[in-house]
């Protein structure tokens, strides 16, 4: 692809092996150059630097040196063991060297000229003994507390960065965030090839770490602030493909599991790989709609993943059995998997990472998040949106069809509340309680559905023991009729139809009767005619006989007179 061509021509990169960071930097850190990683305490600077070095040693066959100015080698080994890294093993195999440089200001008295040749010798020794290609200096600024002569220090820094470059080392230098400059001691003055900023912010009681590539000389890079996580697998910047909107779209359609809802969606259901939002107030049947979709997917033999953030899986299984859907069977067959957790237990990013891990592991074709509102509750609006955007982008690139339910609150602006996430959704089905004549009835309509002709009708539906059943539409003077109003209307319409049928039958009977009357008349006329005809024929015959006998008489008379 064009991407790989561009990689070759642009400056050589050194992959960090950190999930997501290599995508943001289009391949990694600048090879053979120093990169400044800067952030406040607790941002993950040390971990990022260590990940870079260790990943190099493990995955890219590039040994590395970690110069620790703050923590001892033992502490680092212990800390990193929690991420599953066996640093001691790497050190034994000469793939890694950790050199702890301890700067204790109180021990040091300065008098006269000096330089930091000792540091250089240690660096050179470490680099040469491991054949290191990567080096991390964490954090160089500790030197400022150990040496008061900043003039010498700055001159030595300049020399240090020259030295790193001359050795062809790809270096990560960490630094504390400064109040005025990028770093507290202006290290950015020396490292100008690549600058990565880390931040750790608390909003709405949820702490999120952010990473931003603020500068990358000679290379394109994502410029946003990307949230990142420190999980048991180390740092991951999420998601992997958030930089581009280039996923392939499918024209394949998948059934919603509710035949009449399929008809409403252009006759075929959702698009594969699209996102569906089912929103509604409490008790409108969101979970039921979601479960129908899952049931249909399992029937097709597709794996489904159900994130239950509100109900426990056993509760869902029981409830759905009551509407005639046996999810237990799919669970047994291994097609359906539940992941239940209280969304509020984790931070937003943690949640996302946890979801991502399960999706990678189970590889479902369909996922359901029920309800997404519980996730939304965890974070600030903008964070939620950015997290969901990235989750959805990521799911779309994997062609996973996702259905999210969203609990909205009664009385609130029913449609406005979800606006923040609705723009990410391809299909939005709204479930509503219609209150009319002392009843609450369920109704459903499609608010939007991208890329297909869809019904604009508000449809009443029932949740029966055979699942969701969409009903025919009855329009009353005030709109769609539901519940008993619909029933009354239905009955009225039935009565009207019956009356009409009876009317027709009546007319038909009348017609028959008239035909019969006419036919009777015909019969009498015919009978009368026949009688008259008989009489007349008789008279005619008598006349003919008379005429004959007269002629006979005349002939006899003539013969007797012998006239001729």
């Amino acid at each position, binding site marked *: 692809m064009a991407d790989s061509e561009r990689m070759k021509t642009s400056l050589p990169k050194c992959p960090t092996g950190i999930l997501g960071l290599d995508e943001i930097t289009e391949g990694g850190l600048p090879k053979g150059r120093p990169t400044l990683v800067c952030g406040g305490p607790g941002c993950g600077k040390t971990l990022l630097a260590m990940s870079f070095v260790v990943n190099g040693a493990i995955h890219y066959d590039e040994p590395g040196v970690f110069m620790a100015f703050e923590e001892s080698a033992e502490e680092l080994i212990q800390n990193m063991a929690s991420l599953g890294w066996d640093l001691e093993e790497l050190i034994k195999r000469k793939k890694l060297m950790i*050199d702890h*440089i*301890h*700067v*204790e200001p109180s*021990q*040091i*008295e*300065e*008098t*006269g*000229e*000096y*330089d*930091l*040749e*000792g*540091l250089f*010798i*240690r660096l*050179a*020794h470490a680099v040469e003994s491991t054949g290191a290609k990567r080096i991390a200096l964490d954090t160089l600024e500790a*030197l400022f507390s*150990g*040496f008061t002569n900043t003039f010498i220090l700055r001159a030595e820094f300049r020399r240090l960065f020259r030295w790193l470059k001359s050795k062809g080392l790809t270096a990560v230098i960490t630094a504390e965030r400064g109040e005025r400059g990028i770093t507290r001691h202006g290290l950015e003055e020396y490292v100008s090839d690549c600058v990565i900023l880390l931040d750790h912010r608390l909003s709405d009681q949820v702490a999120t770490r952010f990473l931003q590539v603020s500068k990358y000389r000679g290379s394109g890079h994502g410029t946003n602030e990307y949230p990142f996580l420190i999980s048991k697998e180390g740092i991951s910047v999420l998601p992997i493909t958030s930089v581009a909107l280039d996923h392939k779209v499918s024209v394949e359609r998948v059934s919603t599991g509710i035949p009449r809802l399929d008809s409403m969606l252009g006759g075929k259901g959702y698009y594969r790989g699209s996102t569906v939002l089912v929103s509604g107030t409490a008790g409108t049947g969101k979970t039921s709609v979601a479960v129908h979709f899952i049931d249909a997917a399992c029937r097709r033999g597709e794996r489904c993943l159900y994130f239950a953030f509100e109900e426990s899986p056993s509760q869902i299984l029981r409830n759905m059995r009551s509407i005639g859907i046996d999810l237990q069977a799919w669970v047994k067959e291994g097609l359906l998997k539940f992941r239940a957790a209280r969304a509020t237990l984790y931070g937003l990013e943690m949640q996302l990472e946890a979801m991502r891990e399960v999706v990678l592991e189970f590889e479902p074709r369909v996922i359901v998040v029920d309800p997404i509102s519980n996730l939304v509750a965890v974070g600030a609006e903008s964070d939620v949106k950015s997290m969901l955007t990235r989750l959805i982008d990521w799911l779309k690139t994997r062609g996973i069809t996702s259905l999210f339910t969203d609990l909205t609150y009664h009385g609130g602006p029913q449609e406005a509340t979800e606006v923040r996430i609705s723009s990410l959704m391809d299909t939005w089905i709204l479930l509503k309680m219609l209150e009319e004549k002392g009843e609450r009835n369920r109704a459903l309509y499609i608010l939007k559905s991208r890329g297909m002709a869809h019904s604009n009708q508000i449809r009443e539906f029932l949740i029966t023991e055979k699942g969701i059943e969409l009903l025919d539409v009855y329009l009353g003077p005030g709109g769609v009729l539901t519940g008993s109003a619909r029933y009354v209307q239905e009955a009225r319409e039935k009565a009207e139809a019956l009356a009409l049928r009876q009317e027709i039958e009546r007319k038909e009977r009348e017609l028959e009767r008239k035909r019969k009357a006419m036919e009777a008349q015909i019969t009498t006329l015919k009978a009368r005619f026949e009688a008259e005809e008989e009489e007349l024929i008789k008279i005619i015959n008598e006349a003919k006989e008379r005429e004959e006998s007269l002629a006979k008489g005349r002939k006899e008379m003539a013969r007797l007179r012998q006239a001729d």
Partner: protein
Amino acid sequence: MEGKTEKNPPSESELEEAECFQLTLYVAGQTPNSIKAFANLKRICEENLKGKYQIEVIDLLENPQLARGDQILAVPTLVRKLPPPVKKIIGDLSNTERVLIGLELRPK
């Protein structure tokens, strides 16, 4: 801890009791700074610690791994290993007063 000896300069009698000064000078090759430092150190010791000191000079260019043990970053660095506590003085030792303070031979 040893805060007491650190804060109060040791009296003459304490110095007598203490073992002799073990001093290590770390250098990196024969640079002007290291030559100057060694000369300054020699002179200060002769003037203040005559007969009670040992000087070891370590060239890190020859033994780079030794930089790790004493946490040497700057050169020249003078390390007072004995008497405790360990003290470090960096630079060419051109300021005699500061060296004496560093070696705890003068009150601060």
